[in-house]
């Protein structure tokens, strides 16, 4: 059994003291240990932002790439080595803004990866501009008169595009979030977990404001009912329903046809393509009557 201590990292943490990101980090470590995954079996992929620094704060494989581009990198990693548990962990600005197009097409491709969106509804590292999820009307340090466009609804979008595991978590509930992350990581298709992560520096509401509004998704919610799941995903006017919105049978994962041909190991372990096959293909170019 993997012990949570195996995930310890000695890298100095740059988050604000008391940031709910610490809750996500704690829940992720617990989930990985309880799933009995060793650090070398896990690949954490992130973009840029405070959330995207998370991979440095636990021991695992790390691909901390470009802003907005965690998803395509994770897809490449998933194709090259499906034995890795590839987990994207980045912020709402990174995943829904800069990289929104990639996420949309990732739903279509359905790689077996888990996407954890640290959703603080603000651009924090750049000091307080609107993010794709900032509610209309909220004032920021750039949108001085209030945000004038509607927030992105990525959970509903994910469900509409056939994503088979869509959940909302709360960074202030490590226990509950651990359970959601375990289910998401174990799900053998793309899973999206949007985690409410109040920004204690630039956000318009303190953690307790969210805590009062977080409500569990009712026990009688049927996660296989996609229409109902979309309604729950969109129902964020006064409260935030937290839990698994949608859990459907796993779909064929990205590159499955290719994997049927070459097996499921890392591609670097495959033998070379037979030289004579390639030479024959070049020889075909010689024109003879």
């Amino acid at each position, binding site marked *: 059994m993997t012990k949570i201590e195996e995930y310890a990292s000695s890298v100095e943490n740059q988050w604000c003291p008391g940031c709910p990101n610490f809750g996500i980090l704690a829940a992720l470590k617990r989930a990985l240990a309880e799933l009995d995954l060793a650090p070398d079996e896990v690949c954490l992929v992130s973009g840029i932002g405070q959330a995207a620094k998370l991979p440095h704060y636990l021991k695992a494989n790390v691909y901390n790439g470009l802003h907005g581009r965690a998803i395509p990198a994770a897809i490449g990693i998933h194709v090259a080595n499906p034995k890795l548990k590839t987990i994207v962990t980045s912020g709402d600005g990174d995943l829904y803004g800069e990289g929104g197009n990639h996420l949309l097409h990732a739903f279509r491709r359905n790689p077996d990866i888990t996407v954890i969106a640290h959703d603080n509804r603000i651009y924090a590292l750049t000091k307080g501009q609107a993010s794709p999820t900032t509610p209309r009307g909220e004032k920021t340090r750039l949108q001085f008169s209030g945000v004038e466009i509607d927030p992105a609804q990525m959970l509903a979008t994910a469900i509409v595009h056939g994503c088979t595991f869509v959940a909302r978590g709360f960074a202030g509930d490590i226990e509950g979030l651990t359970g959601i992350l375990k289910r998401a990581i174990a799900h053998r298709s793309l899973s999206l977990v949007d985690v409410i992560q109040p920004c204690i520096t630039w956000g318009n509401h303190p953690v307790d404001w969210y805590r009062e509004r977080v409500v569990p998704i009712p026990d009688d919610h049927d996660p296989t009912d996609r229409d109902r799941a979309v309604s729950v995903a969109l129902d964020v006017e006064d409260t935030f329903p937290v839990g698994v919105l949608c859990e459907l049978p796993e779909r064929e994962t990205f590159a499955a046809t290719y994997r049927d041909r*070459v097996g499921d190991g890392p591609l670097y372990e495959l033998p070379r393509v037979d030289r004579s096959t390639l030479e024959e293909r070049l020889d075909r170019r010689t024109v003879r009557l």
Partner: protein
Amino acid sequence: MDRSIFVAGSAGEGIQTIGDVVARCFLAHGYPVFANQEFESRIRGGNSSTRIRFTEEPRNAPREDADVLLALNPAAREHCADALRPDGFLITPDTSPNEGNHLGIPFVDLATEHGGQAIYANAAAAGALCAAVGLPFAVLEGVLSSTFAKHGSEVVQANVDAARAGFDRAASQLGDGVPEELPRRNATYAYASAHEVIPIAAAAAGCRFISAYPMSPSTGIITAFARDADLGVFSEQAEDEIAAINMSLGASAAGTRAMTATSGGGFALMVEGISLAGMIETPIVIVLAQRPGPATGLPTRTAQEDLLFAIRAGHGEFPRVVLAPSDPQETIDLTVRAFDLADRYQVPVVLLTDQHLADSRFSLDRLELPADIPIDHLADPADFETYARYAPTETGVSPRLAFGQGGHTVCLDSDEHTPEGHITEDLQTVRPAAVEKRLEKVRRLRKEIRPPDVNRTDDADLILVGWGSTRGAIAEAVDRLRVDGRKAGSIHFAELWPLPDVARPKEARYWTVEGNATGQLARLLRGGLGWSIEGTIGRSDGLPIAARYILERTP
């Protein structure tokens, strides 16, 4: 023997098919062919042409004039009229003005009468062409039979019958002017474009992953990978070029050799990814198939406008390699080399091609893979108790492991990072050492890059300097200058960055020949190597550089 045939028509009329059948006839008869395409960015209509040049020895360069022009419609005839030599033949389906060297042949009528259907008109046209250049009909019959065999014997017979009718009609109209029959040559040639061999070379080099977004003239590369899916290279059409390069980098970081391909606008979108590859020291091969810009430019035309872009693309300072092949064999060699350099130095490598190289077909004695193709690019995990991805070394290159390889964890970071790959803002020691590490690779690469090919410069007082796809045209220009008594030579760069540390071989007048308006190679050689370059013969109208173009502008 040096004959040039233009087949001109609208997109969708089948000029490529006619051109390909006729080209294969020459090849089957023992004559090397160079064929290039010029076409508009549209699906139907417009003016385009396939140009076939056949010679006795391979002459892989375009000609701008035609000995025979087959024009399938009046607009096509006008489009190419200026190219037709005064002593050339014009062949058209328009039978009314039938005088001098004009053969008017009713292809559709002949096809309907002899092949049974109008769709065989192109076979009748190919027949007329063969008659006009002295190719024996049996050769055409053989090529048609093998080309259409998969459609069944009835289709083969209809094509042959229509072709025969076209051939006979042309021969009878030519009367005494029928050219002498071309003697059969006992030679065979490999006939290929540069892009179609890239997947074969990449697979030989151990590439298992390509992600790309369709963009002319690069699309043929991922298409060829997908067609050759049995080679085991995974190919994915990305949602955009940003995704394309980032997917490939992810796959490469996970230990597989990976590549992408694009043209100028897509390359522009990839630029941040190139900088990332430099920072995380993750190998990647990027084919940049050039077309004229700026912006959308001329999507289906050719240019060499992105040399300085390829060399400079990416924010910050980091090592990269830029290679530029000139024909399919060199494309094979440099594709293999690109993967090797990318892995040994853990850098991005750009392979610069262009529309002319992509859409032209070359005749070569043979196509072959390099004898030795090293692909052991990952370190042995047993060598490490604890692993640091960016461990300091004398060469600047750290042993590379894939994620999780041998039980190790591997950290890559686009931020400035410690030897362990973790984000840092240590400006006193870590940052200076990291900068030095990356730049040490540039210094070592510079010694590894191959010097240019130097040809016939010993007695030369005029030296033409080129790179990439213009090689054949420059060689031909030098030949013709020599015939005219000029002491000309040439220098060709296939490996362009880091600039190899070479001096000019001698004192002479140096001119670059380039498919751009500003002399990018000249600027590079002046600024980077201190070469004195007198001027540039540049071309930026979207058409390929031919020997005649060079000769008309040679000082």
